[in-house]
Every structure is written in structure tokens, then in C-alpha cells.
């Protein structure tokens, strides 16, 4: 009797407690307790923008006192999945159009708000020790080179494969060259962030990454080898505001800031080509 009563009470109370728990997980973010009501926006951004967006948000918070920008950096695919499953975000910045299109089709993103904010391209990085003596792209085709690329599901992994296929089409390089490169791959990484340590530590001999990942803080640890424009791809990064955004005005301000002069300077500093400057 008691047990039955307890269980039924539990079943009734369970959803309520769950609601409270989940509200606690998503909605509430600790403030500094100053009592000033703060406005906040959440930016879901491709991991390759980690440095630039973090800096930019700092500037944004200075320019708009009382605002707090919360970040979630991950590979664009993962962010898209999170948004599809109801993650609360105001702005989504993707490393390729595919993820944005998918969210547009699902009606998650406000179509009017989507803008291309920058262009990026890929490059090859090698550790400064250069254990495999690589000086040009052709050297990647020697057997035994330990190459790291992005997994098929990630934008930078897809771009890498597009580039390799362009080399395949060029008789100067050809299929044998590209097949050897494929057989040299030792790891298919899920995000840009897990590629870099493998190069810095010298575990891998070379990796395909975004140009923008290589600049700035890594300058003394890695060497960058350019991929000629004829073989390279242009990665366009779109930004969009979520339909569910609770703070559309502030989100718009943020996107404007990103595409404005301050954003342009910062993006360039990180090796991107901003489209709006």
C-alpha cells in the first residue's frame, strides 16, 4: 500500500523535479552577484573561430556594458545537432554552409539573419622539428608520412578531401600520389582543436587545417605550407540568428559588430578574410 502510494507520488513529482533540474542546467548562468540585471546572448561557434570570437566578445562586452556573451565552441556538425535537439542559443556560426542550410530547412534559424561573415582556406601545418622533412605538398605523398586530417563528417575534413580530389584530377600529381596521401593518414580527428596538439607535440608529421588555425599563437611551434589557390577551397562561414532567440536585438547587434570594422580587423588578425570590409 505504502509502496504503491509512494510510487505514484514519485511519478507525479518526477516530471516537476526534472523540469526544475533542466531549467537549472540551461537557463541560469551565474552572475557576479552585483545585482545589475545583465543581458546575455549565447553564441554557438565553429571551433576554428575560438580565438577570434572570444576576443570579439570581449570587445562587445566592453562596448555594451551589462551584456554577457556565453560561448559554445565545437565542430559545426556537433553544434547543429545540439541546436536540433533544443540547445538554447542565440547565434550560430558555422564553418560551412551545409550545417546552416540544414538548420534553415528545419526552421531553427531566421532566414533573414543569415550572412556570410568570412572566408577561410586550408593549409598544411608541420611541427617545427619537421620530422618528415616536408617542404611542399608533394612531400606528403612519400610513404610513411604521418598525416592527420579531419573526419569525413567535419567541414575541414570534407574540404581536405575536396582538395585531395583536385590533386587527383591534375596529371602532374595523379591518382598514385593522392592514394599514397590517403594511406598516410594516421588519424581522422573530430575537431580542429584535437589536431593542433598532435602537431605541436610532433606526434604527427603534417595536418590539413584552416589557415586561420595556424596564425598567431602557434607561430613558433609550427610551420605552415600554403596550398596553391588552384587546388584550395574557399570555406565560407555563415552566421545566423536562431528563431527561438530570447534576445534578438542584442543578437543582431552582435552580428553587426562581427561584420563591422572591429570584427573585420580582428578576423583578419586571426588569418580569416572577412567578407564585409
Amino acid at each position, binding site marked *: 500500500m505504502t509502496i504503491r502510494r*509512494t510510487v505514484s*507520488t514519485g511519478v507525479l*513529482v*518526477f516530471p516537476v523535479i526534472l523540469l526544475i533540474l533542466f531549467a537549472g542546467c540551461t537557463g541560469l548562468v551565474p552572475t557576479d552577484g552585483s545585482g545589475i540585471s545583465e543581458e546575455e546572448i549565447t553564441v554557438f561557434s565553429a571551433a576554428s573561430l575560438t580565438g577570434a570570437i572570444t576576443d570579439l566578445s570581449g570587445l562587445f562586452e566592453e562596448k555594451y556594458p551589462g551584456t554577457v556573451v556565453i560561448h559554445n565552441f565545437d565542430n559545426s556538425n556537433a553544434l547543429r545537432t545540439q541546436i536540433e535537439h533544443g540547445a538554447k542559443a542565440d547565434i550560430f556560426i558555422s564553418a560551412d554552409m551545409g550545417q546552416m542550410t540544414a538548420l534553415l530547412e528545419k526552421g531553427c534559424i531566421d532566414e533573414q539573419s543569415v550572412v556570410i561573415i568570412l572566408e577561410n582556406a586550408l593549409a598544411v601545418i608541420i611541427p617545427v622539428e619537421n620530422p618528415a622533412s616536408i617542404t611542399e605538398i608533394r612531400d606528403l605523398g612519400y610513404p610513411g608520412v604521418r598525416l592527420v586530417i579531419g573526419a569525413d563528417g567535419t567541414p575541414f575534413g570534407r574540404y581536405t578531401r575536396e582538395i585531395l580530389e583536385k590533386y587527383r584530377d591534375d596529371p602532374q600529381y595523379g591518382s598514385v600520389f593522392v592514394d599514397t596521401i590517403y594511406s598516410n593518414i*594516421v*588519424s581522422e580527428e573530430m575537431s580542429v582543436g584535437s589536431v593542433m*596538439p598532435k602537431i605541436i*607535440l610532433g606526434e*604527427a608529421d603534417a595536418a590539413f587545417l584552416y589557415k586561420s588555425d595556424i596564425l598567431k599563437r602557434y607561430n613558433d611551434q609550427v610551420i605552415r605550407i600554403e596550398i596553391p589557390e588552384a587546388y584550395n577551397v574557399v570555406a565560407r562561414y555563415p552566421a545566423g540568428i536562431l528563431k527561438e532567440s530570447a534576445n534578438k536585438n542584442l543578437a543582431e547587434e552582435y552580428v553587426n559588430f562581427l561584420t563591422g570594422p572591429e570584427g573585420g580587423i580582428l578576423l583578419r588578425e586571426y588569418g580569416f578574410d572577412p567578407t564585409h570590409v
Partner: protein
Amino acid sequence: MIWTNNLSIEGSPLKVVMGIVVVLLLMFIMVPLLALFLRITPGEFVDALSNPIVTEALTLSLMTALVSTIIVIIAGTPVAYLHARSHYPGKEVIDSVIDLPIVLPPAVAGIALLMAFGRYGLIGAYLNEVGLSIAFTTLAVIFAQIFVSCPFYIRQARAGFEAVDRSYEDASRTLGAGPAATFFLVSIPLSLPSLISGAVMTFSRALGEFGATIMVAGNFPGRTQTMPLAIYTAMQSDLNAALSLSIILVVISFGVIVIVKFFSGRGVYRC
């Protein structure tokens, strides 16, 4: 007194609260697991089983976890026996070091292994000179698994040896058996239930290893992409493959608990 009184009263507030907590906790564990099974139809599950990402990961995982477990048994049994039978200065320190991987975050294990066995690592630098490199190989997967899973076996084996009545060992020696014969014919058989449940726990921990593996071994299908890594990879592209691998792991894990429960009721055989 008051508490016990309250507990015995039918439908007392405390009892109701406790009931709610138990139900909540049970549901918190059960609902996600159930959701895993409900998200995929049996047909889709069977289809996914022929997907290369699933089959390769399954084979690699079972193979590496088995090799890791065997190595842990071979290297861990003497350690466990030594710790159960003898005292030496610093034994407690060594014991704590062996237990460390249980509480260490996998990312720490990963970076530590890289610093030791990476191409420019403490030991790896020398291995690299003789042409041996660990990173990105199946061997790296096994290293990571052994590192994180060996304490589970050693702890359990030590407890098993400790529970063996030493008079049997003494009797064996009195009757003329040497230390080795006594160890293999008396101590091991008597503590077998503990050894088995320890080995099974080590196997399942090795099977679930993720954090250290992805750092040291990378992610390459058929070579270093074990089941947890395949789940992580497939989540981005093929949810059914990720779900199927997860279901397989849930079933294996449940089997492990059943086996451990079965043997833990009888820590040692008693005559």
C-alpha cells in the same frame, strides 16, 4: 529513536520522500538507457551491424581489450599476490600509485602517456630512435587500456588472495609442494572467483576507454577507432551506427555486472 519510530509508521513523510528519491534515481538511470533502445528499430540495428564502422570497431575493441586484460592478468597477479602476502616499506605508497588511474581523469592519462611514449617523450624518444613509434598505432590503444584498467584487476585479485586461508598454503608446503606449486595449485584456485571478476571488470573498463585513446592513438577506422571512438565519430554522420554500438556496449556492461555479482557472492572458495 524518533527516526526509527517514524520509519516504521506507514506512509510517514520520510518514507514517502525516500520512495520518491529512489524512484527518481532509478528513472534517471533507466530512462536514458531505455531511450537508447527505443530510438532504433530491430531492423535498423541489424542493418547497422553490417556497417564497416560498427564491425571494425567491434572487432578492434574486443581484440585490444582482450590483449590488455591478458597482459594485466600476467603482470598484475604477482603484484596482487605480493601485496596480499608481504609487508615492505613503502607498500602503501605503491598501492596508492597502482590505484591512481581509477580516479585520474582520462585526459590526464592521455597526456601523461604522450609525455612518456610520444615521439619526443621520456621513453618514446629512445624507442623512436630504434624505429619504434607508439602514437597512432593499435599498440597505443592497448597502452591506454592497460593504464586505465589495471587497478580494477589488481585490487580485486589482492582482496581475493587476502581472503585465502593461509593454513591451506602452509599445509601445501608442509606436504612438500614448493612455493610455485602452492601458488598455482592452492592460492590461485582458491581465489579464482575474485580473479575472474577482477579480470572481467578490467576488460569492460578497457572496452570503454575513450579519453586517453583519442589523445594517444588518434582516430582511424580499423586501427585505433575502438567502439567509444566510433560512437563519437558516427554521432556526426550515422546516428544508427552510434546507437547500435552503444546498445552493444550496454549489453556487454550489463553482462559484466551479472558476472561480477555472481562471483562476488563467493569471494573465495571455502572447503
